[in-house]
């Protein structure tokens, strides 16, 4: 096992700048999710780590070893591909055993190891089949088995769940998390799904436009997003962002004035904040007309079963509010949105989070 380090890694494809100086350190035994929208450079970063692409500049280290110019096979890594990349003409057993066979492991040793990982992934009964005779979920398990059959320094996973149907994805998400905890291996997991990143990873690195936006544990990414992009990309439904202006008692949001305590107000003033960010669960619906409540009208009501998502149109834009499952409202009806500004974060004109929520790990209700 080993840590993984990217040092000023740059990647250009012709004139296209895909990675601009990526600096990233994954400590030993940690599960890192590389999260970002498509085209943000996360897959490129993974391929550079695997040795399938060469960086234009910069260095890559796996466990103290500079692997920047090494062939993939000399990097001591295992990789799971989005399309599983199984060897079509080999049986499942041969697929799993291939990394061992290449390394000259004896037949008996190979057999034992194949049986062991097949048991872990519950595919022991499929060993004689060929990949085309397997379902998507089974192929996924074979690909995972092939990766864990060795004891590599790091596991690389490139959106391994995105080819599965929604239900199977949930199951495999839990399974992969369990597997990685059991192996306690350094894992780099590329995904565009923020739920996967939050649920599975020890550390989340959010990328956009070829740059690392923030790297932190999932809870911190969620509660203390470094900037407007991270705030809106992580979380479902995403964080509400509204224009905000400072006044004597607090901030003016939409048409309402929301009182903010003096120390935070001073910080906001210093940072010249322009926007306020509110998680949907930190907002609540309230009778219109009360003090400190934002005035709006109901735009969409979406009952989810366990809760109701209410989209409220305010002066400065729409706001998603998580309401109780018994919420009843009619489109067009006038309604108020209440929130505690201690739960809000504030962005400056550069889109950076200038003032975070008051409480780090809990919510003020």
């Amino acid at each position, binding site marked *: 096992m080993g840590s993984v380090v990217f040092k000023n890694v740059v990647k250009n494809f012709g004139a296209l700048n895909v990675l601009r100086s990526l600096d990233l350190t994954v400590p030993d035994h940690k599960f890192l999710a590389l999260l970002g929208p498509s085209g943000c450079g996360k897959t490129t970063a993974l391929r550079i780590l695997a040795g*399938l692409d060469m960086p234009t500049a910069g260095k890559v280290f796996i466990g103290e070893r500079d692997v920047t110019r090494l*062939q993939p096979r000399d990097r001591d890594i295992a990789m799971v591909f989005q*399309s599983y990349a199984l*060897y079509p003409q080999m049986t499942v057993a041969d697929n799993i055993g291939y990394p061992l066979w290449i390394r000259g492991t004896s037949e008996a040793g190979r057999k034992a190891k194949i049986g062991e990982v097949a048991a872990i992934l519950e595919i022991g009964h499929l060993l004689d089949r060929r990949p085309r005779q397997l379902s998507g979920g089974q192929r996924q398990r074979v690909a995972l088995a092939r990766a864990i059959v060795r004891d590599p320094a790091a596991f*690389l996973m490139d959106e391994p769940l995105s080819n599965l149907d929604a239900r199977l994805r949930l199951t495999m998400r839990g399974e992969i998390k369990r597997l990685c905890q059991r192996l306690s291996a350094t894992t780099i997991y590329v995904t565009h799904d923020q739920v996967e990143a939050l649920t599975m990873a020890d550390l989340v690195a959010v990328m956009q436009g070829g740059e690392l936006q923030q790297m932190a544990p999932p809870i911190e990414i969620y509660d203390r997003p470094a900037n407007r992009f991270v705030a809106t990309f992580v979380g479902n439904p995403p964080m509400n962002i509204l224009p905000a202006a400072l006044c004597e008692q607090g901030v003016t949001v939409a048409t309402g004035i929301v009182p903010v305590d003096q120390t935070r107000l001073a910080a906001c003033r210093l940072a010249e904040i322009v926007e306020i960010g509110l998680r949907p669960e930190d907002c609540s619906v309230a009778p219109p007309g009360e003090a400190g409540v934002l005035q709006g009208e109901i735009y969409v009501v979406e009952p989810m079963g366990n809760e109701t998502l209410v989209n409220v149109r305010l002066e400065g834009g729409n706001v998603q509010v998580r309401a109780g499952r018994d919420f009843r409202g009619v489109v067009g009806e006038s309604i108020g949105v209440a929130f505690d500004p201690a739960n809000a974060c504030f962005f400056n004109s550069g889109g950076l989070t200038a003032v975070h929520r008051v409480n780090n790990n809990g919510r003020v209700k």
Partner: protein
Amino acid sequence: MRTGTQARKYRLQGAGLDLALPYLMLAPGLTIVLGVLVYPLWDGLRASTRAYRYGSPVADVGLQNYLHLWSDAQFLNALWVTVKFVALSVSFEAVLGFALALFCLHEFRGIRLLRTVLIIPMVITPVVVAIVFRLIYASDAGMLTALSKATGGGEVQILGNPLNAFIGLVALDVWEWTPLMFLILLAGLQSLPHEPFEAARVDGAGAWRVFADLTFPMMRPVLAVAIVLRTIDAFGTFDQVFVLTRGGPGEATRLISIYGYDTAFKFQQTGYAAALFVTIGLVVLALAFSAIRLLRRVDAS
């Protein structure tokens, strides 16, 4: 319910013109097939059971022509030369074509031009190719002789020497038809999925192992089909030999097609030639069936 007058407005399916239309539309094509394919085939089969003199059938001999083939030393030699020619040419073409296709799979500057240039021999008229090769091989003023003389050697005997003539013929065929092999195999290689190859590199395989464990097994069906198609085609080679050597010197390059041609048109033994070609036709048909079975197996996977 609809009244009678309303019903008359609708056309029913599967009745009247609707029923006859498919047959009417098939009729012209069917007539042509019967006229130019089925009748000549039947006529050829009939001819193969007859003896001819001065171009006219004189007697029904049953299967005599077929049986006689197997005691005809010239036929057996022609068959042997053909088999040698097909085996050598097709294996060289397969190996060369595969190597070129693997090379042309890489993307680099000028690759498109290279791929186009490599296909050119295939699109030149075979007779023209043969004429050019005769100019290269000619012992008096040929290019090989000129080259040899320039470097201090003497005349180069290609078409006058049995072994050299045969090798020269194989070389011509390889030159002309490697591009077809290359084209089919390149298309096959390009249609292979990308990820297994990257997975193999990560799993630890070097270039040779990637080829032996992935590329070759994955390409086997395409390779098999290409070889069978080319084999069928090579059995019928005629024009190049006709222009280059006419089967000589002696019988060194006399392929089955040349022998059959001589039998039919030089010696006017129409019935015997028909039996010969029907026999070869059956051999090629068997090869074609194996090709189709291979194709089916590819589809199934």
